[in-house]
């Protein structure tokens, strides 16, 4: 009996010692930081998070532990972050989906972006490239649009799932170019790549890193990129905006961001924003991220909140259009 009481006391004091530093930021961080990532170890968002947290732990003098909670397109990671929230040492990274489109795609994500999430900063953005098999003979955007416009659904394209960035980007592109393409959902870029090279489907908007090595091997052509300016990892790929009759402001990017549960102390958020912005200015980090297909994009928490609002609106309109079809 006595042993249980001691155990309870010990547990209670352990809980208190975890909860205390949140109110006394002078000695924050006083415990290891936990960063929830909604994707499995070794995945692109996970690797990106590790690059940042590695440096972050050096700067903060505390270990930063990555907690992989994969599932539901990153939504489970955020849910789990919110469950552990409140100790001032719980954070997360997320891709754009759970912050912008997940609420539309799922019955109930279990959180409200505006109410439950405190933005810290964008980490990096990634454009998508439009890829086709080199055997198709299509070498530029004009001939692609001509081929796709021959009749409705003349060309098919692959994506990494209903409502994924790859799907919505393709639909945005089709709407702007006045086309209708047949959507074939897959679950990974690996499958989309195999299917394009095998000649089963015609095209796909893909992460540059997933497509570029096949361009080098001569089995794929990339026709354009969705960023506003040429992308560092693939400087030769022309931007889609303003070419082949597409509007000058055509832009579609995936992004990755560092977030905290709402209610996290302002001072902690400011400190993390400053540290991470600093880390992202390191040329070595920039190069490492570029190698993985990510362009660093540090900014203020306010700028990130604006980006969330703007993207939610833009993709919301695309989803409306897809659902109307």
């Amino acid at each position, binding site marked *: 009996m006595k042993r249980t009481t001691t155990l309870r006391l010990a547990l209670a004091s352990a809980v208190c010692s975890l909860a205390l530093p949140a109110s006394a930021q002078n000695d924050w961080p006083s415990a290891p930081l936990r960063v929830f990532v909604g994707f499995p170890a*070794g995945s692109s968002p996970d690797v990106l998070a590790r690059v940042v947290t590695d440096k972050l732990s050096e700067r903060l003098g505390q270990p930063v532990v990555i*907690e992989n909670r994969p599932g539901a397109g990153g939504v489970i990671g955020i849910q789990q972050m919110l469950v552990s929230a409140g100790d001032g040492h719980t954070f997360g990274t997320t891709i754009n989906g759970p912050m912008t489109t997940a609420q539309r795609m799922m019955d109930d994500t279990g959180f409200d972006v505006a109410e439950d999430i405190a933005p810290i900063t964008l980490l990096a953005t990634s454009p998508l490239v439009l890829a086709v098999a080199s055997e198709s003979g299509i070498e530029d955007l004009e001939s692609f649009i001509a081929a796709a416009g021959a009749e409705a659904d003349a060309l098919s394209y692959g994506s990494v799932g209903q409502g994924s960035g790859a799907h919505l980007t393709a639909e945005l592109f089709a709407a702007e170019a006045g086309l209708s393409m047949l959507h074939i959902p897959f679950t990974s870029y690996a499958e989309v790549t*195999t299917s394009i090279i*095998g000649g089963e489907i015609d095209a796909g908007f893909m992460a540059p890193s997933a497509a570029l090595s096949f361009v080098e091997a001569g089995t794929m052509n990339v026709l354009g990129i969705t960023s506003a300016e040429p992308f560092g990892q693939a400087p030769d790929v022309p931007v889609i905006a303003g070419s082949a009759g597409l509007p000058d402001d055509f832009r579609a990017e995936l992004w990755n961001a560092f977030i905290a549960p709402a209610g996290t102390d302002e001072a902690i958020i400011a400190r993390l924003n400053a540290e991470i912005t600093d880390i992202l200015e390191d040329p070595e980090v920039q190069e490492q991220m570029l*190698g993985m297909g990510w362009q660093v994009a540090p900014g203020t928490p306010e700028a990130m909140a604006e980006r969330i609002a703007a993207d939610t609106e833009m993709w919301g309109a695309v989803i409306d259009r897809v659902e109307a079809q």
Partner: protein
Amino acid sequence: MSTWDSLLLGLSFALQPQVLIYCVLGVLLGSFVGVLPGIGAMAAISLLLPLTFYMSPEAALIMLAGVYYGAQYGGAVASILLRLPGTPQSAVTTLDGYPLTQQGRAGLALFTAMISSFTGAMIGIVVLVMLAGWLSALATRFGAADYAMMMIFGLVAASTIGATRPVKGFAMIALGVLLGCIGTDVNSGAQRFTFGQTELLDGLNLVALAMGLFGVAEVIANIRNPERQKTAARISLRSLLPTRDDLRRIPLPILRGGALGSFFGALPGTGSTLSAFLAYATERRLSRQPERFGKGAVEGVAGPEAGNNAAAITAFTPTLTLGIPGDPIMALMLGALIIHGIQPGPMMLEARPEMFWGLVASFGIGNLLLILLNLPLIGIWIAMLRIPFNYLYPAIIVFLCLGVYSVRGLTFDIVLVAGIGLAGYLMTLAKFSPALLLLGFVLGPLIETNLRRALLIARGDPMVFLERPISAGFVFASVILLMLPLWRLRRRKARAYEDSI
């Protein structure tokens, strides 16, 4: 550069002390986590990933790969001794491996599994070296229609294994397919049977399902039936040695299993599961005494073990030659390369031959280490059965929960495992085969997705399944398999008729 030169280059690379040590570490850790019920290669590799930041990319890959194929050896141990498979492919090994343990012949089953694993892996290596180019082209030649028909063929071929009556086997496959429907439908994005639970959006957790159906169910069965606990006492070291009869039965199944595994392993996705089930089905069909299967036939251990180890080797072909990972664990390994700034893709083999050939050489070295390590360990594994069951079972349950939790870090999955375990126990009582349920669970959703994808791509024309040669081949093979029993029945009737005259 000739294949021989390349292989020598690989060997000289893999035998460097600082590379060799990581290979040893990898296979040791792999066979260790493989034995722990529920904790598989995925969990171990996720844990090791941060460590690989500080290693050369080649050494990192060799170590992680060692964990991957090393876990196959360990997985057989848990399946044979405790009926605790961590993956669908080792579930096949329980079908005859566990009955052998119950007969006090666990030593023989483990010996067979080890020898088959080793030989199967060696066959895989030879096939990989000789046919790497051809195998990697295979991955892009298979379209959605081909996958759909190949997996239907797999289901048809495996539908009767492990079941006392065909209708029971069929029922289990159907239940597995239904359970596989839970989650987000790839084609439409619709959420099916999720009841608003985010945890179910990606479907049931495979590890939770396997651990519940086999592990928890087995623990309950043993607690209820103390007679089953006496098996351990009957095991003697003599039973380890195969009889002349056993030795005669093993070689051909190993060769067939190795060949099947080498082929199906090279296909991204379900290669290793399919090859284990197909190897088992093949042995049962070819056997003169199919009734021995499920009651402790060594062929039923040899074939699938050779098959899944061969598949574990050739599964690296699409991953390394195309940069297309065949399963989530392979994707994780490629992630380790990406951290080092290496972009996986079709150029990797040309740009870094020492990595590819070093890895291939390390397969050989690693498997040699594994067999040398595991054969002497058989005695120790068997001794594990002598642990009083009131200590062993709570420990098993703890490891089960750890293993299931390690996949996604969700307590939901632990609750799930308890529920599935209860259902699994009821199935065992009614003599339904949980292995077939797992097969249906894995293949069902893939068949559906690929079938609908193929039709979508063909703009709704069902002829696509007959127009593509690979798909048509599998349709033809499935039809023959289905007709075979009818034909036999007719022949038997005809003969009976002749006899009556």
